[in-house]
Each structure stands twice: as C-alpha cells, then as structure tokens.
C-alpha cells in the first residue's frame, strides 16, 4: 500500500468519523445514538490499524484491538443493557434549535482547521490533515453535551469526545505510548460503569434522566 493511498484512506475515514459526529449531534433517539457511537468506534479502530501499518508502529495494532473491543463491543453493550433496564430505549429526545446547533458545529470545524493550520504546516506525518477533524470531533462532542438534556446522551457525548481525543493522538503523533492508552481505556471503562450506577440512582430519585431535574438540587435563593 503506497503512502498516497494510505493518506487517502485515512482522510476518508476521518471524514466518516466527522460525519458520525454530526449525525450524533442530530440523532434524537437514544437507540440510534448508540448505533452511531458504535460505528464511530469501528471507523476509528480501522483507521488506527491502517495508520499503524503505514507508519510501521506495531503498538497501534494493540490500540486498534483495544478500541474495537471496548468502544465497538463492550461500551455499546453496556449502554444497550442500561437503556433496556431503564426502559428508555424508545425515548425520543427533543433537540432544540437543531439548525442553529448544526451551524455551530460547522463553525467549530472551520475553527479547528484554523487552529491546526500551523501544526499541519510543520508536521511531516501522513495523518497531519486529519488533526483538524479530530479536534472538531472533540468539540462537537462537548457541544453535544451542552445541547442535550438526557443523561445517557450526555455520556455518549462524553465518550464521543474521548473518541476525538484518541483520534487526535493517532493523527498528531501516531498514538500515545501504549501504557497511557491502556490507562485511558481502563478509565473509560470504569467511567462507563460509574455512569451506569449513577443513572440508576438518578432514575430512581428523579424518575427521569433529564438533567434539568437536577437543578432542583441547587439551594434556593
């Protein structure tokens, strides 16, 4: 596989990751969101493997397998079980002002390109063009957490941010050292468990997973 082709494939996968990020921003059904998240993880995993092959960094294969098992299989499974247990798999969330959110997302992508322009000029790696996409994925994940009110959606937004960070690490420096990546993977896994436990508690306390309900915890003035 020539470098040229690899860079093309890399860019293509980056575009798909960004597309799934935008799709998640718009997806109103929890069930659909989990699917999109799974797809994003899959593309990320494939991309990591390709980068590892092209750049001849073998520890990226391990990262790839880790991503595959964690973000494509385990986390979606946990989330899936969670929403079945909480009986919210058919819930449809209202997304307010979706076109405006979309515009902000587009602005964030442009902003990311503007930000990473100096890095791209200096870098020699084949994946340099995807750094902006990675950064945009992070920010869109954060934007998703801001615009959504459902606790499960917020967690998916958080995990999408993590995906973006992982992607950024892959594209900027061919991945982080393996120890760090293992640590991050463990963190994400544990976070998912903790979130799961919290969801149960929030659900039993407020009878809803709408985070606006938690504003009631604030002291009245």
């Amino acid at each position, binding site marked *: 596989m020539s470098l040229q082709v690899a860079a093309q494939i890399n860019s293509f996968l980056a575009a798909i990751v960004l597309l799934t990020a935008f799709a998640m921003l718009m997806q109103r059904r929890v069930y659909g969101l989990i699917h999109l998240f799974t797809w994003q993880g899959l593309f990320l995993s494939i991309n990591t493997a390709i980068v590892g092959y092209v750049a001849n960094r073998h520890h990226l294969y391990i990262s790839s397998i880790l991503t595959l098992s964690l973000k494509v299989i385990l986390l979606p499974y946990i989330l899936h079980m969670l929403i079945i247990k909480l009986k919210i798999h058919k819930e449809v969330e209202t997304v307010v002002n979706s076109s405006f959110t979309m515009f902000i997302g587009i602005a964030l992508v442009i902003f990311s390109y503007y930000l990473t322009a100096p890095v791209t000029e200096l870098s020699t790696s084949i994946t340099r063009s995807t750094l902006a996409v990675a950064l945009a994925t992070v920010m869109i994940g954060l934007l998703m957490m801001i*615009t959504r009110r459902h606790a499960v959606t917020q967690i998916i937004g958080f995990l999408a941010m993590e995906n973006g960070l992982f992607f950024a690490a892959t594209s900027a420096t061919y991945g982080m050292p393996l120890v760090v990546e293992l640590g991050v993977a463990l963190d994400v896994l544990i976070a998912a468990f903790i979130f799961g436990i919290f969801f149960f508690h929030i659900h039993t306390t407020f009878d809803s997973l709408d985070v606006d309900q*938690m504003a009631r915890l604030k002291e009245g003035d």
Partner: protein
Amino acid sequence: MENTISPLCKIEVFAPINVASLSIALLLLLPALAAIFRRRQSALVAACSALIGFSSLLSIIAGVWTVSSHITGRLVLPIGLPDLPFHLRLDPLSGFFLFVVGLLSFFVSVYSAGYMRGIAAHRPVTRLVSFYGLFVAGMFMVVLADDALFFLVSWEVMAAASYFLVMFEDEKAVNRRAAFLYMVIAHVGAIAILLSFGVMAGIASGFESFNGYTFDAMRQAKFPLEWATVAFLLSFFGFAAKAGVVPLHVWLPEAHPVAPSNISALMSGVMLKTAIYGIVRITFDILKVFPWWWGAIVLVLGLVSAVMGVLYALMQHDLKRLLAYHSVENIGIILIGIGLAMIFTSFNLSVLAALALIAGLYHTLNHAMFKGLLFMGAGAVLHATGERNMEEMGGLIHQMPWTAALFLVGCISISALPPFNGFVSEWLTFQAFLLSPSLPSSLIRLLVPLGAALLALTGALAAACFVKAFGVTFLGHWRGHGRPHVHEADWFMRAGMLMAAVTCLLLGIFPTMVVEWLDIIPGQLLGATISTSAGAAGWMWLTPIAPERASYSGLVVLFGFIMIFAAAYFILHIKAGKIQRVPVWDCGFEKMTARMQYNATSFSMPIRRIFGFLFNIGEHKRLSPQSAHPAFPAKMHYYLRVRDRFWNWLYMPVTKTSFWFSRGIGNLQRGRIQTYLIYSFITIIILLVFVR
C-alpha cells in the same frame, strides 16, 4: 529612653513582662476551668471572678511597674509560625494600657462575682466564663504584642471572644443581628489593619523577606511619604472601626446593650481603648514622621464623633444604648487629644504635643473608669428591674440607694464636672486647644478654636444627657406598668462599682501625680515632657503650661463642694421635721398618674427640635378610633422613631451594592449541567484562540 533596658531585666525572672505573661497564661486556663466546673455553676462563677481578678492584679502590677520605673522588657516566645516567633514587648505605653485594662478588668471581675451569679440562676454561664477569660487575655495580648503577626492574632482573639459574648443570649434575633453587625465591622477593620501591617512590613524588609513583620524592624525603616500615608490611612480606618468613630460607630449601640453588662463595661471601657493604643503605637512609635493633615483628619473625625455621639445619645431611652453612644463621644474626645498631638508633632512643637497626648491618654484612663462604672450601674439596674428602657423606670433611688449614688458619681465624671476625673482630662484637652495660636499655619489657627467650641458643646450636651439618664432612671416615680420587686445590688456588685467610683474621684483630685506618672510616655514617643511645668506649683495644683496661665486643684474644688453640701445639709436638716413628705400638688387635676411624669423623650425634645436635621426622625400622633369627637380623645397615640442617618447614607448603599453584586455572581451558579459545560466550552475556545 529606648536604651534604658537594663541587661538585668532580661535575665530576671521577676520582670514586669514575665508578670504580664503569667497573667495572660492564667487567663487562658479559664476555658479549661470552665469545662471542669461545668456542672457546678456557682463554683465556676466564683473561680472565674477570682482568676480574672488575680490576673488583672498581676497586669496592674506589671503596668504600674513599667510606667513608674521606665523599663522596657522584651520576650520572644518560641510559638507562632515556623521562623516567625511571637514577640512581646512591654514599654511604658503598653504598660499604661495594660494598667488601664487591668484596673477596669479587676473592678469588673469583683462586680461579676455578683452579676454572673444572677445570670447563673437562670441559665448556664460556662460559655460566658470561657469567652470572658479569652476576651480579657486578648486585650492584654494586644497591648503586649510587638510584631504584626502576634498583634493580629491577639486582635482576632479579642474580636472573636467578644463576638461570642455579645451573642451570649443567642435565642433573641436582635442579639444575633447585633453580633453579626459587630463581626462584619470588626473584620472589615481587621482587614484594613492587616493590609496596613503588610505595607509597613513590606517597606521595612524591602519586599524581600518576612523579617519586616516585627515592630522593631518597622521602627527602623524609613517610610516614603506616600506609603506611610497608605499605611496610616488603612490602620486608622481599621482602628476607627474598632473604636466606633463616626461613621463606623453603628455597631456600638447595637452590640453593647445586648451583651451581659459586665462585658459591656469591658467592651466599652477598655476594648475600644485597644484601638486607641493601636493608633498611638502606629503613628507615634512606628511611623513617627507625618504631615499635619494626618492629625487634622484624626482631629476632625474626633470632633464629629464627639458631637454626633452625644447628640445620638440624647435621643436614646434605652439606658445601655445611651451609654454606648456616649462611648462614641468619649472616643471622639480622646481622638481630639491625639489629633492635636499629631498636629503639634508635625510642626515640631513637641512639648505641646506631649500635653495633648497626655490629655488623650488621661481621658482614656478616665473614660475606662467612669464608663465601666456606668455600665456596671446600668447592669445593676437591669439586674434589679429586668428593664433597659428608661421610660419604664423611675424612683429607683429609694430601692437602690447605693447604685444610685455610685451611678451619680459616674454621671458627674462623664459630664466633665469637677472635682471628678472627667473634668481634668477635658480641661487638659481644652488647654491643648488654647495653645493652637502657636501653630505656624494660619488655616489651622483659625479652625482649631472652632474645635474647642464643639468640644465645649459636647461637654454641655453630655451633662444634659446625664441629667436625663439619672433623673429619669432614679428620680421621680416608677413609670412602668405594674411594679416589679426591685432589690439593691449585692455586695460584690456594690464593691466593684464603689472601687471604680473612688478611682474616679482620686483621678480627679490628684491629677498632678497622674500627669507626672504618665509623662514618660510622651517622653519616649515624642522626646518631650511636661512634668517640669505641670507640677511647677506643687503637687496640689495642676498647671499644664505655666502657673500664671491656667491652674486647677481638684482637692480645693472638692473641699469647696464639701463645704457647700455640708452647709446645705445643715440648713435643711438642722430642725427635724422640716422636710415633709406629702402628695404632689396636682394643680387641681385629680387623675394624676406616674405616666404623666417628665420622661426621657420629653426631656430631650428641645434638643431634638434644634438638631433635628441630623437625625432621621419619624414622628406622628394618632387619635384612638374609639373617641366620639376629636375634641374629646379617649386615647392618644404618639410614635417617635429616631434613626441614625448614617444607615441610609452609608450602610444601605454598601449593603445594597454588595447584595446586588453577590446576586450577580450567584447567577453564574444556575445548577444546570449544560450551563457549566458552556462555561468550560467557552473557556476552552478562548484559550485555544489565545495559544494559537
């Protein structure tokens, strides 16, 4: 004079500073004692009074010894922060204040033995006892402190202990509110003092190390004028908040009435004086060189406090509130003396400055005595009648002859009438005023006599106020509804008041000795003394400047008064039965009741009319709706509310602004996760833009 520390003092165990430290250490034991004796309240009261009395005696000894023998003792305690030990220093200025605090504290401790027993009868006094000990210890520590750290620690111990003492009867909302107000103002002041020390310590060490925190380092530093001004203004603001200088006086009339009376006596009598000590210490001892307008600020604020304090006091009908406002007045008089001393010092007229400073310090001592006496008297009245409102009192002289007589002594003293002590110090202040023509600046020469006129007005108004306080409380008939069983104060309370009253008299008739004794303080601070002129005509005559100019002998005046009283008594009582007790002639109006007496509000009415523009007065009358015709009212209601204008002028805007501001800050905390996420999002975006 600084170098008169004999090397012997340092190694001697029995030195004044060690005695003073021992007294503080004993006082700090008191909370532990309170914990042990928790179950036996009467034993606790006795132990507390004995311990505080003994510690106060030790402090008196240390103070008198230091001032009399002109020694300066130092001590470095190995406690405090690492590398920043606590420094203690006992020089004549500290010694004098130690003496003042100790003396009143001793009288009050005797008084407390009786007073606290009365409280212990219906509620536990463990908390009162613990904080009482800490409070007195805090005051001793403040005057002994010789570094900024220890000073502030002591200052806060004093403030916190007194806060809890004001809060003693915490089931009443008004007490909690008063304590909170006190705490807020005390802390705003403490912050200013802290900043002032920060400035001075920074200059002293060149902003390079922490070694500038000792007062010794600050004394040796050369302060640039602008930094010295900053330090002075900050510290003056802080101490003024503690002393209750107008317009920072509002906490006094709230906090003093609600504290137990023995504590009010100490707070008003000596706690305010620690602020005076701070002002004198920082201006004369640490900063030393200053322009004349600093003194002018102190003088003007002193005058305003004196006049406003006494005018507000006249409007009160709560006995302890009235006394609290008089503390504002007397702090003003003390500040007049200190302000004049500062003005004279900046024009290098050190002998005149010495006179003015002595007048201020003498008034400090006097005010501690008579205000302590008056608060103790008010406490005895409160204890006996359960009433603070003068409108409900009257005729107490019959049931409480001792308290009445001793309270009268306090009234005469505070009204600056001879032969008692208040007269002497105010007279000295006047002498200092009358020396102002020797000032080189014509502007001050013109303005200072105006101050003398205001001081004279203050004295007259104070006398009027105490005619009212004494007359309405002790004379006439009982005004209240019903008649509680009123009893005379017990022997401990009487003894405490009696000692204070005798001290008032002694300070009034032997002023020359006191002035000569005090002379070392200006001698050390200003390098000038007045003893050569003050005692020029012998011990009996006080001649502050020169015998031919002005002289006063308390003993002669006392003798004259005794003659007049003896003659009057002789004429009235020579023939038994010349005094008859008959019903009051009611001008033919039959339904005369005790409620128709002249009362506190009616007594102060003329002054309220004249100076009404200074107050926020709400006054209205209302006829009772039952009356058939307005010409024949069945009942008439009269409402009068006199409020401090400073609430609306100064405090309301400040509170409103701070509430508005904190609500604005509070709006950031919406309790919605999305809002918090937006904050982080915006922060990230901004940071990314900046680091690009």
